[in-house]
Structures are given as structure tokens and as C-alpha cells.
């Protein structure tokens, strides 16, 4: 079973029902480690050694966050800047993450249709996440399409439970290698689509 490291960043977690359900769902599974960055490093002073050690101990890295201005909140970027260091994650001798998986688990205010060519944002999430994808590639990680909870402002209570269950399903698929082996994951723009086909 693969071990999953969730790097989680939300500056107003206390107000987020979506991420509360997601975190709650994830923490009930085994072999999952959650790093609540805003809680652990309120002054952005991320403990690099500790984070790198965690990366070594896990097989899958999930960046979980709300989407702000088509990207992640600053502490996730800080984490990327500090932890994925030269000579360790990339560059000469930087091969510590080779072969691991990475993906973003995000929430967006806009609906799924808004993130299409025809929609108001004109691009898919996967397109917006090109920097993450390329970061993963440079670190020799396999980048998967994002798992997204969209239209988060209009979600109703009952839906929140489903979200948690879906997330658990995705996490289990990752742990059991179901996604990596399936050949069609490269054809989807969101992991959610994979979920429906099962």
C-alpha cells in the first residue's frame, strides 16, 4: 500500500466546509499524513528538514488547497520554494523524489463548466496548473490531473458527505495503484472523471 502525504494550505480553514469534509475524510484513512501548513508554520518559517524527511517516507504527494487567482495560496508556494530544493529534489544529484506521484486536490468557487474553453475562465484547471505539472516533471515526479470540488459556494450540506466519500475513493485508488496502472488517466483533465467511470 502506498503512503500518501497531504500538504494542506488554507488561510481561513475555520470557514471552509469543503476542506473540513475533505480533511476529515482523509484523516480517517490509514497510511496518510496531513501537514496543515498554516497551522504548523503560521510565520511561514517552514521546517525544511522535517518536510523533506516526510517526503522521503511517502509515495504520493497531494497539494490540497483552495484555488486563488488560478493558483495556490502563498504558503503552498513557500513550501514548494523551500522544500523542493536544488540538489535534493532537482538539479545535480536531485533525485530524491524520483518515481513518486503528485497531484493537486482543490476547491474552486467557479463551476466545472466555468473551467472549460467555452466557460468564463477559458481554460481547464489542468491548463492553469501547468506550473505544478512542470515542477513535478523537473523533480521526476509523475503529475496526475487535479481532483476538484467545484462550485463550492453553492454546495449543500448533503453534498459535503459525498465529497468526503469521493475523496476517500480517490485516495484509496492512489494507495492501491489503481490510477497509475490505468492507462486512461492521461486522457482526463480531472481525476473526478475517473471516479465516475468506476
Amino acid at each position: 500500500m502506498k503512503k500518501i502525504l497531504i500538504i494542506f494550505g488554507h488561510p481561513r480553514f475555520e470557514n471552509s466546509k469543503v476542506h473540513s469534509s475533505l480533511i476529515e475524510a482523509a484523516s480517517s484513512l490509514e497510511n496518510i499524513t496531513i501537514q496543515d501548513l498554516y497551522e504548523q508554520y503560521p510565520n511561514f518559517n517552514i521546517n525544511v528538514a522535517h518536510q523533506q524527511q516526510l517526503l522521503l517516507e511517502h509515495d504520493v504527494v497531494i497539494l490540497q488547497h483552495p484555488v486563488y487567482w488560478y493558483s495556490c495560496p502563498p504558503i503552498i508556494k513557500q513550501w514548494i520554494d523551500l522544500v523542493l530544493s536544488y540538489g535534493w529534489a532537482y538539479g545535480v544529484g536531485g533525485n530524491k523524489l524520483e518515481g513518486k506521484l503528485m497531484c493537486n486536490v482543490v476547491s474552486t468557487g467557479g463551476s466545472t463548466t466555468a473551467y472549460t474553453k467555452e466557460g468564463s475562465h477559458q481554460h481547464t484547471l489542468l491548463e492553469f496548473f501547468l506550473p505544478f505539472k512542470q515542477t513535478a516533471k523537473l523533480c521526476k515526479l509523475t503529475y496526475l490531473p487535479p481532483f476538484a470540488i467545484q462550485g463550492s459556494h453553492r454546495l449543500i450540506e448533503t453534498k459535503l458527505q459525498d465529497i468526503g466519500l469521493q475523496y476517500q475513493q480517490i485516495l484509496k485508488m492512489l494507495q492501491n495503484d489503481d490510477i497509475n496502472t490505468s492507462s486512461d488517466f492521461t486522457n482526463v483533465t480531472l481525476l473526478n472523471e475517473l471516479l465516475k467511470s468506476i
Partner: protein
Amino acid sequence: MEHSFLFQALVFLIAAVLCVPIAKKLGMGSVLGYLIAGIILGPFVLGFIGAEGEDILHASEFGVVMLLFIIGLELDPKEFWGLRKAILGFGSLQVFGTSLLLFLCFLYFFNWSVNVSITVSLSMALSSTAIILQTLKEKGISNTIPGQASFSILIFQDIMVIPILAVLPLLAIPGVAPPTTNHTLISGLPGYAQTFVVFGVIGLVYAVTRFVVTPMLNLIVKVNLKEVFVAAALTIVIGVSYAMTLVGLSPALGAFLAGIVLATTEYRHSLESTIEPFKGLLLGLFFIAVGSTINFGIIGSKPVEVISIVLGVMIVKGIVLFAIGKLFKMTFKNNILTALLLSQVGEFAFVLLNFSTTLHIVDKTTFDLLMAVTAISMVITPMLLVVYEIVQKFTLKNVEIPKQKPDEIHSKHDVILIGFGHFGSTIGRFLRANGISATILDSDPDRVTMLRKMGFNVYFGDGTDVDLLFAAGAEKAKYLIATVDPPSVNQQIITLVKKHFPHLEIIARAKNRYDAYELLDMGIESIYRETLYTAVHLAVDVLAKLGMRAYTAERKGQDFITFDEAAMKKLAKDRHDTKQYILSVREQIELQEKLLSEDLHFTLTQHDNAWDSEPLIKNAQPKQR
């Protein structure tokens, strides 16, 4: 039997010291222990206390006076306001419902006159504040639903004593000239005038406490002599009681009023902790006296009447309480417990019946009978509770897990802040700005007065006093912030807190590194050195002034704090076994030296790697060659 004072005191104390621990060991609570001690000492078993039992009862009624003073003090007007619905709802239904039912019983089954029935039913409707509050406290169920319900009803009953006392003179049979042995200032006046005087006196108590006693306390506190404060506290209680007895009113009532008025002042907690030991002793004495005055003679001569009244009264009270509980949708178990708790006749019956005897409403025989009834019902309650607990043990499955919903009133005071000087006040202000109102203790009267004017929840007192900590709610609080200067006092407070309230998480201010070592040795984990953060902050700004980028300096500052805290813990361990607070100069230098050599490890912060392109450039260069 005539005994010397010392002998009597010795007998009482031995009885209390022997019986109370045994009773507690058997799970009966101290009240029953005292009562049994009283019965054993009384004329019907050992005979150590004879007729003087009643004198002792009167003398020790003062314990009830003090209890009511303390209850008054504890009645924060805000808390009082929060409970207003429960008090009015539960309380009025209980008092009026019980009185009415008892009235009908006395009228029809005992053929008493209307006036006697009214008087007796009102007296019997009230429960024993002393027994119930003591029991709630001992069993630690004050904050449960039955506890709160009982408390609400008791408060209403306490308040009802005022109108009852005022109304009683109106029930006195006119024309029967009382041969007053117990002459009071108002006993010659007609009924309506007495009623008027009663209300006048209550107003007077309020005014005097507010405008004379409080300024007096301000002066006394400045003298800063503990025993003068104790004397002042006793003066208040005894003074009010004396004033009340002058006009033939219940001293307990006066004390209760004085307590409520003083509850809004900063001396609330210190008064409470000063009176508490006196109250405890006298209340114990009171219970012993109650036990000793149980007239087994009357029980022997009129067994049917005594037993039927005891059972009748307790059953009626229980049924009314149970019905009210049902009405307020309490669970069966909570309901039963509340009904059991409040089913006895209280010490107010002694006061009210005494008063009505002097008014010639109730005759001596009936009075004796009712006194026996009251005392017996008081003995039965703790026994019923023992039975209740045994039954509960056998039906463990039915035990309700207390709802984890924290009590609104108390959750606001999760934090106790000791010391409100420059350091503590900053903490208090910041917490308050974020909606946390800590319970604050400070020992500077001027500052306390000023801060109270500003609306802070500050109390006057020294944190080195366990009773005061109890009064401040240390049992219920979660965190205690100790910010007192000098450190020796702060450490004294922390030692005390660790001993008496091990559940409290202590967050301590440390004056400096040495102080921090002491605190580390005491097992405190949350230590905040006042010299560390400010000094580093200053140094960070100096680096910035010297041209270092502000963010870089800031990061280095944060790293340095982390590093220094780790170094402190490390050095604290291999420090010499110098237990004294002040280290010798040589040792201080040694320590500085060690620290400085530790600092050599702190040259490059972990983050300097992150945005450093040096290695990238180095690697890029060979390729360009």
C-alpha cells in the same frame, strides 16, 4: 451537664474529625457525617450536648449567614441574569406549587388554622441551601443539569424569604399581646408598619454596603494587612446580621443582600476566600447542632404525626419537583436527582418558624414538632442520595454521559490571568480584543479599581492564596497564565497551582534565562522569556537598519528564537545542580560562554539555501566553459 468551653470545643472537633472522614469514606458526604456526629453527641445517645444544643444551633446559624453571604458574593449579576428564566420558571413553580399543596394538606388532614397552614407550608416549601450546595460541591455536579436546576430553585427560595418574612407579620393574630422575651425594635408596631420597616431595612442594607462598606474596603486594602482585611470581612457579615436582628429580621437575608451588593466589587473573590474557612467551620457546627437537637422525645411521643409530616412533606416536595422537571423536559434521571436533592426542609424553616413563633402564629408544641420534622428531613436527604448512588451503580447501563456541550457561563472563563501589570495587561487586552475575557487577579488595589472602571473583569487578590484561586474558578478553568513579577512569587503561585489544580495548563512568564531554568525544573513547558522576543525583535530591526533586507532579517530572527529555545532546554539539562535562584557571577559567565559557543552552530539559516542561486550558478558555469 456543665462543661468548660474548651471541653465542649474539644468534643465537637473530635466528633467532626472522626465522623466526617468516615461518612465521606462511606460515600455519604460531609453533611451526613456532621449530622450523625450531632446525633451521637446529642442528649439521646452520649449526652455531651444537652439543652445547650439549641443555643449552639442558634450560635452556629451564623454559619448559614456566612453561607448566604458567600452565595450572594458568588451571584455575579451577569450569571444571575443568565439563569433568570430557570430561576423564575423552576423557582416560582416549586415554591408556589409546593406551598399550595402543603397548605391544602395541613388544612384538611391536620385541621390546622388557615394562618398556621400558610406559615408552615411556606416554611416547609423551602429547601436547605446549606445541604444542597455542599452536596453539589462535594459530588462535583454543580454544573450538571440537576445541579443548575437545584441552584436556580434555591436562589428563588432565598429571594422568596424576603417577601415571606415581610408577609408573616400580617398573619399574626391581632389582639394576642405577645409577652416578648425577644424584644425587637419593631415588635411594638402594627403589622403593616412592620412590613414597611422590613422593606426599609433591606433598602438600607443595600445603600450602606454600596456607599459605606465599599469605600471602607478601599481604604483597608491600602493598609495591606491580611488580618485587618479578615476583620473587615467579618465586620461586614456580623454588622449586617446585627442590624437585621435589631429589627427582628433574618440575619441570613441581610448577609445575602450584602453579598450580592459586594459581588460587583473587586473584593468579591478575596472576601469569599476570607469568609470561606469560617463558614466551613460554623456550617459544620450548624449541622452538628441540627443533629443534636433532633428531639427523639417528640418522635417517641408522637411518632405517627412526626413520620407522617416528614414523609408527607418530602413526598409532596418531590412530586412537585418531578412535575416541574417533566414540564421543562428534563430526563428521568436528572429529574429524580433534582427531586431528591431538594426534597428536604431547609434551615430557613428554623428562621421562619422561629419568627412566626415570636409572632404567636405557631405555638410551641407545633414549633417543636416542626423542628424535629425539619431536622429529620435534613438527615434523610443525604441518605436518599446514598441510596440513589447505589441504585445508579447497579443500573450502570442507564448512566447518561454528561453532554459535552460546555457551559456557556463558564467557558468564557477558561483562562485565569494572574498579574495585570504591564506584561499581564497586554495579554489581557489582546485576549479581550479577541473575545476572550479571562478571570484576572491582581494585587494592586488602585490598578484594579481603575481597570474595573474600564470594564475589565479584574479581581483584587494575591494568586498565592489557594482559596482565592478556588474562588476564581481554578477548578473549572483550563489555562492559567502566571505573569507576576518578582519571579519568586510567580514560582510560588505555580507550585501552588500544580499541587492543587493539576489539570490546569500553566503558561508562565519568565523574567530571564535563569528564571526559565527554574520553571523548566518545575515541569512547565510553556515558558515565555520576556527578554527573548523583544531583544530579538530589536536586533532584527538593527540588522534591517544596517541594510539587511527586512524579510531576511525577520527570518533570521525567527530562526534564532527557535534555536535559542532549543539551546535553553539543552543547557538546562546539563546545568549544575544549583537549585538556588540566583546563580553566582562565575556561573553566569560560564553560561554566557556556553551560549556563545552554541551560537557558532547558528551561522546559516535553513532558508538561505532556498532562494540562494549560488549552487545553481556554480553548476551552470562548467557547462559554459
